Structures are given as structure tokens and as C-alpha cells.
């Protein structure tokens, strides 16, 4: 067996937003080529935002908000279950990141006097900064990575973290074009692999019609888990309000500041704030399943020039094919309200709180392993959080790498490589096996059947049996080329995430975060027992271990009223007509 080995000081896995700033920052302090960046797609169109973003959802701009106000907002939005120090680290450093992006040439919306043009979308503060020409962001980051001298491997799918006595030693994976398995040895590894976006199945039934970029299949969640890292808040699913059938946001963040808003079929508003939180999603869900449903984004009252501005942004950034989707359906913003629905479930700390446990230095619970972006649990961290935490991780990874000792147990590392190489390549021995898309469809259909909120122990227990059975069925899936090898590896990641989602959701016997963890068998929050993080990790015998982790004392104190500030999101007087509460749909 001959497996090529690349040596690196710091290894970044994933070249999206977090991975980009991590690699750029780490390379600043090292000789050229000592930072390796692995990207499963190609750097120029990778990550969650292949086409760029239309705005920053959580910019903390002096004069508009303070870091402390932001920490309060996110603590409230996440029903108190946050490590405030991690949120505060983002809050205090993100304006510096924003200014850096501005200097790099990212175009933000500014007022006539040249200040950042911050809009209000959140329940309490003002944090939304439009970037109508956000399609430049990927180009700018790609150029900076190349200029910095980072060693980039595109089309490389990392599959496992290599360990030496429980500490990071590198990563193994496969080139998805050549099928060559290779190893990158590194003193520190920063996982920036994005969300677990191919978990639930979209209502359209199209496997790749997911809200998240489908290249984000939960790779990082699974790799961190198998490396022994703790994950947290996995039961706090990501569910987003999207255009019905089309996997783009209807986009309250773009249309809201211009006068668009969410209404029910009667044309009435029913939520006070369009900011995406579990509480908002629960009201959205209730309205959708009541006699007041469906739910719409109302734009028909806006002036033609306002609609033109909305189209200019929405049809050019983030999900630019939405224009042709509407055209195909024969719908126009001026005449038709946009029918909305809820997305499939996913895991993503960028929007909710499900991710790998990290502290304010971006450290996971495995020495030398860092995580940033959608896969790392800093709740509601979004794009600017990914960019900021990429830098934070890089700075701390550099310090760690400088004093890290070389691995001592080389033969054990060789064993890990041999075992993983065989596992990666096994599907090629079954070219006529079950096709990956059928396996994936099955897992994700079962995720919808048994895990989609509202949750019950009975359903999730049945689902868990199927996810365990699917572990064995993965051995039947075949591949005929390197691309399919990548897909089969992703099938394993998706199955792992499904099992984690079921176990964490079963463990927390209360309801919290609105729809994200709404349990019909425990419909109320229970602060006495569950004002804690639920953490999950791989046990010594390979079983999933769950535990409660106390919430660290808040650094920004919260009053009782502040903590429950997101509970009253239903517009006063907006009746709940025939809501399905108490039944399993």
C-alpha cells in the first residue's frame, strides 16, 4: 500500500467562508505552503455561498448595536442555551472583520454619508447589513488565498481525522476526480466543512433541492464525532422559512427592510418579527397547518421601483435561479404573493445551534482540532460569524502548532490509514451495488418520517432502529468512479448525522427553541432539568454517549424578561385557527 503524504503546519478542511479566513490568517505567520487547504469542490465556488451572499445578518456596527446587546439578543433567540463567551468573542471581533472585508473590496450598502447602512430585522436590535453586490465575496477570498501562498487541494474529500494518542495528527481523504487516497499530516486541523444540509428531504423530493449547498453533507459533524470530539445542541435542528418548492429564502432580510412581510392566506400578519428563530418557525408552522394557511411573503403592495430593487438583489446573489423559478410558475412579485413553506431539517449552527462544541478560541474537545463556520456551535453565527471564527481558530491553531509534539505512535497511524483507505475504496468493489442516491433517499426519507418536528419519543425510537440498520446497508452501496466514491462517503456522514439527531432529540425530554425541538410528549420547557447543553460524543466502544453540560455563568447578565423576549412573537390578536397542535401530521 502506497499512500502519498503531504506535510503541513496547519491544515484547513473546507474552503468556504470560515476556511478562507482561517487559511489566509494562518498563512500570514508561516512560510508559503505550510498551510494546506482541502476543498471538496473548487475554491472559486465552494461553501454555503457559491454565488455570494446578499447581506450580513449579524453585523454589530458601533452606533447601531453593542457586542453586549448582540450577546443578549442571541441568548434570547436561543432560549438561554448558549456559551456566552463564544458569542461575545464573535461580537467583539466581528466589526474588525467587517472593516477588513470593506478594505478587501467587498461592497456593503452604505448611506449617503458613507456609513454602513444597517437595517432592523431581529426582534430587538439592528444587525442586518445588505451587500447587494455580494457576488464579489467569493472572488475576493479566492484571490487572497492564492496570493497568500496557501497550498490548495481542490476536489479532495476529507473523510477522517487521524489521531495520535487522542491528539490531532492529520486528515485522510480521497481525490474525487482521480480516486487517489492520500494523507495530510498536520500539527493542527481546522474543520470548516459547513452544515449538515442533506439530512431531511425537501418537500419537492429532489435530493439536491436542499436549502444548504448540497456539498455540505455533514462531513465535519461526522469527522469530528469519529475523532472523539463533543458535539452539542444537535437536537436544535435548522428549519427555515423558504419559498414553497424552491430552496431559497423568500427573503425577509432583503425584502423586510424594503416593506415586504409574512402574511397568512387572509392577508393578515401573524408574526411580529421575521428574524429566523425557532419561536418564529413554530408560529410559522402553526399558521401553515391551520385554516389560515398557507403562508405568503407579501410584496404586491410595493412600488414598481422597490420591486425592481428587490429583484436586482434576489435574482443576482445567493440563489439567482429564483427569478426563472417564478417565471416558470408564471408568478410576478407585483401581482402574486410568494407562497412560503418550511424547509427540510438540517444541522447548522450558522442558523440555529447544532454543531461541534467549541469555546471562544474555536477549540473543540480534541487537542489540536478546531472548528469554525456552520458546523461549529456558536449559535446564529451566520456568514460574518464564519469569517470571524475562521480567524480566531487560525490564531489559536498557530499557537498550538508551535508547541505541538510530533506523533509518537507511527505504527498506529499507519493502521488508521490502512483501515480508512480500505473503507473509502470498498464501494468500488461493488460497481453493481445499490446506487448512492437510492441509499441517500432512503436515509433522508426516514429522517422526514421519524425526526421532523413536532417530535415524539415513539417515532424517534422507531427511526433510530432504521438508522442503525442503515449502518449495515451502507456495505451494499456501490460506486463506479471517484465521484461516486465521494457520494458514498457522504452517505455515511448523512447516516451518522441522522443517528446523532435522533439520539440528541430523544435525550432532551422537554420542548425548547420553538419548532426546532418541539416534542409533543414533553410540550413545555423544563428549566429545572434542562437549562443545560446536551452534548454527544463517541464512547470507547463506538456507541454514542449523551450528557448534560451546565451553562457557564453568563458574562452578560440577563433578566427573566430578556430571556423570554422571543416567546411572544405571535401578533397580538392574531387567532390560531384550527391549529394542529397535539397531533402528529
Amino acid at each position, binding site marked *: 500500500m502506497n499512500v502519498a503524504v503531504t506535510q503541513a503546519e496547519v491544515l484547513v478542511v473546507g474552503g468556504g467562508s470560515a476556511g478562507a479566513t482561517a487559511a489566509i490568517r494562518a498563512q500570514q505567520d508561516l512560510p508559503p505552503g505550510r498551510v494546506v487547504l482541502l476543498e471538496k469542490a473548487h475554491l472559486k465556488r465552494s461553501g454555503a455561498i457559491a454565488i455570494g451572499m446578499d447581506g450580513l445578518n449579524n453585523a454589530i456596527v458601533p452606533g447601531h448595536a453593542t457586542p453586549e446587546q448582540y450577546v443578549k439578543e442571541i441568548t434570547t433567540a436561543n432560549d438561554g442555551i448558549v456559551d456566552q463567551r463564544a458569542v461575545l468573542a464573535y461580537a467583539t471581533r466581528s466589526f474588525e472583520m467587517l472593516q477588513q472585508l470593506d478594505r478587501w473590496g467587498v461592497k456593503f450598502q452604505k448611506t449617503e454619508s458613507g456609513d454602513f447602512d444597517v437595517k432592523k430585522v431581529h426582534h430587538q436590535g439592528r444587525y442586518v447589513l445588505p451587500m447587494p453586490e455580494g457576488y464579489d465575496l467569493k472572488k475576493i477570498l479566492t484571490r487572497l488565498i492564492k496570493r497568500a501562498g496557501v497550498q490548495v487541494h481542490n476536489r479532495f474529500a476529507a473523510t477522517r481525522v487521524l489521531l495520535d494518542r487522542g491528539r490531532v495528527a492529520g486528515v485522510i481523504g480521497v481525490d474525487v476526480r482521480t480516486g487517489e487516497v492520500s494523507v495530510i499530516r498536520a500539527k493542527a486541523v481546522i474543520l470548516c466543512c459547513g452544515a449538515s444540509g442533506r439530512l431531511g428531504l425537501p418537500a419537492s423530493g429532489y435530493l*439536491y433541492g436542499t436549502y444548504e449547498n448540497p456539498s455540505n453533507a455533514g462531513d465535519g459533524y461526522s469527522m469530528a464525532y469519529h475523532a472523539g470530539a463533543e458535539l452539542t445542541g444537535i437536537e436544535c435542528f435548522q428549519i427555515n422559512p423558504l419559498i414553497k418548492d*424552491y430552496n431559497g429564502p423568500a427573503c425577509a432580510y432583503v425584502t423586510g427592510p424594503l416593506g415586504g412581510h409574512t402574511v397568512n392566506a387572509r392577508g393578515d400578519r401573524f408574526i411580529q418579527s421575521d428574524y429566523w428563530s425557532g419561536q418564529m418557525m413554530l408560529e410559522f408552522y402553526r399558521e401553515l397547518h391551520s385554516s389560515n394557511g398557507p403562508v405568503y411573503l407579501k410584496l404586491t403592495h410595493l412600488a414598481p421601483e422597490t420591486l425592481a430593487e428587490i429583484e436586482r438583489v434576489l435574482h443576482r446573489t445567493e440563489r439567482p435561479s429564483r427569478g426563472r423559478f417564478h417565471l416558470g*410558475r408564471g408568478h410576478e412579485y407585483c401581482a402574486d404573493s410568494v407562497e412560503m413553506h418550511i424547509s427540510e431539517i438540517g444541522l447548522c449552527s450558522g442558523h440555529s445551534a447544532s454543531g461541534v462544541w467549541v469555546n471562544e478560541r474555536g477549540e473543540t474537545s480534541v487537542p489540536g482540532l478546531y472548528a469554525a463556520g456552520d458546523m461549529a456551535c456558536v449559535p446564529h453565527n451566520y456568514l460574518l460569524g464564519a469569517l470571524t471564527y475562521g480567524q480566531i481558530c487560525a490564531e489559536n491553531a498557530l499557537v498550538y502548532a508551535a508547541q505541538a509534539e510530533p506523533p509518537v505512535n507511527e505504527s498506529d497511524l499507519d493502521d488508521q490509514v490502512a483501515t480508512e483507505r480500505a473503507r473509502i475504496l470498498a464501494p468500488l468493489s461493488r460497481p453493481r451495488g445499490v446506487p448512492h*442516491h437510492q441509499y441517500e433517499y432512503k436515509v433522508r426519507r426516514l429522517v422526514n418520517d421519524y425526526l421532523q418536528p413536532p417530535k415524539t419519543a415513539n417515532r424517534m425510537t422507531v427511526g433510530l432502529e432504521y438508522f442503525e440498520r442503515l449502518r449495515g446497508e451502507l456495505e451494499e452501496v456501490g460506486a463506479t468512479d471517484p465521484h461516486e466514491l465521494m457520494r458514498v462517503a457522504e452517505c455515511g456522514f448523512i447516516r451518522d448525522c441522522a443517528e446523532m439527531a435522533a439520539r440528541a432529540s430523544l435525550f432532551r425530554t422537554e420542548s425548547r427553541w420553538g419548532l426546532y425541538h418541539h416534542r409533543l410528549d414533553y410540550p413545555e420547557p423544563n428549566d429545572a432539568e434542562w437549562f443545560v447543553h446536551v452534548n454527544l460524543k463517541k464512547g470507547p466502544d463506538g456507541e454514542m454517549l449523551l450528557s448534560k453540560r451546565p451553562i457557564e455563568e453568563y458574562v452578560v447578565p440577563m433578566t427573566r424578561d430578556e430571556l423570554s423576549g422571543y416567546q411572544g412573537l405571535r401578533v397580538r390578536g392574531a387567532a390560531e385557527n384550527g391549529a394542529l397542535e397535539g397531533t402528529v401530521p
Partner: protein
Amino acid sequence: MSNLEDREVAKAADALRVGNAQTVRVYDVPVVVDLAKCITGCRICIDSCPVDCLAVNPETKKAHMRHDECWYCLACEIDCPKDAITVKIPFLVR
């Protein structure tokens, strides 16, 4: 009747262990490449695709959608220097 039951018992057992059968069917996919405009040897769209669904068609030597895994993000269409690509919304979504 008992013969049919015996047969079912045998077939149910066989179904657990027989190998796999295959099918071949060419069908409509979202990424449409204009072969007259597409440049032989250019791989820009193939590099752009975040889900790696494009490849060179060995028969035409031009780009084509090899895997039915499109996110209709338009990266290939936007990045194509010859405007040779049109992305349709997948049938299940449109």
C-alpha cells in the same frame, strides 16, 4: 396452491441474496450545454460546479451534466466564457 407457496418461500429467500440487476435510461437533466458554443478543452464550468455534476462527455469532447445532482446555483452558467450553458430548474422543482 402449495406449489405457489413453496415457490414464494424459495423466492423470498433468494431475494435476500441475489446480486443486482441494472438498467440504462437517458433522461432530461437541468444543465443544457450548447455544443456549438462550448470550447473543446475548456474546463471552467466543470471546475465551477460545487456538486461536481459536470464532466467532459467522451463522445462529444464537450461539457455535459454527467450526474443528476444539480443545485441550480448557476455557477456554471455565470462562469462560462462562451455563454454556452443554460440551467433549467429541475422538473421536480419547477
